[in-house]
């Protein structure tokens, strides 16, 4: 049963990512992909809060499986982030590739840390 809910959460997360990325990229005037950045940072914040609730407040682990592994996992994406940076690298935009990969990493780690902290207080 949990696996089915995880699958459903993941499917919904992926749909939200698809819609958010499409909407962001349509308005994005830069030649730099911003949709995935926004998605991964917001998803990391949400998973940080959720993990904190389970760790510090004893929220049920099923919640973490369905909303965390399911929704947040389906919403955020590592593969698209890697391909976006890889394409920048292959089109000789080395600094844009480094800024994309490093910026996303630092911002997502910080967002997850803020989420964990928010849930701990």
């Amino acid at each position, binding site marked *: 049963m949990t*696996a089915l809910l*995880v*699958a*459903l*959460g*993941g*499917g*919904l*997360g*992926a*749909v939200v*990512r*698809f*819609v958010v*990325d*499409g*909407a962001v990229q*349509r308005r994005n005037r830069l030649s730099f992909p911003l949709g995935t950045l926004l998605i*991964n940072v917001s*998803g*990391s914040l*949400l*998973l*940080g809060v959720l*993990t904190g609730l389970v760790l510090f407040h004893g929220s049920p682990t099923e919640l973490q*499986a369905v909303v*965390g*592994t*399911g929704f*947040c*996992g*389906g*919403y*955020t*994406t*590592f*593969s*698209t*982030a*890697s*391909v976006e*940076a*890889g*394409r920048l*690298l*292959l089109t000789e935009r080395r600094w844009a*590739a480094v800024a994309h*990969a*490093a910026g*996303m*990493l630092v911002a*997502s*780690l910080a*967002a*997850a*840390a803020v*989420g*964990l902290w928010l849930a701990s207080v």
Partner: protein
Amino acid sequence: MAVRQQGRPTTRPPTTPRRPHQDPRFLVLVLVGGALGTVTRYAIERAFPAAEGSWPWATFAINVVGAFVLGALLESLLRTGADEGWRRAVRVGVGTGVLGGFTTYSTFAVEADLLVRDGHALLAAGYAVGSVVLGVGAAVGGILAAGRFAARDRS
């Protein structure tokens, strides 16, 4: 199909191009693909849970493999024709759906933060930077492999 119905102003003109993220057929493809990718990751994470204070191998492998496959898939689709019809359906269903749901950035970020919290800062830094560098490298490898494959096919 292309004939416009006169006197029926409420119907959408058939020539209006709908963006993929507003097309319900694509939303269903992403929903199903995302569910399949996510539940596969869930099964792998449960079979190989990361021990506390150790390198999260399951997420690491999932993300690097997913980056390689997505790079290869998108490059293959690009090289075989325009992003329309079945190619767009595969890109959205398998690329955005399955592989997007299979790989995860949020679990990766939280795992690295928890390693720091548990006093394994060096391991966390290695995991964070190693995943990103290898992920980008795998994506580039997938793109180049698909390009080489396509070039060999043509000759």
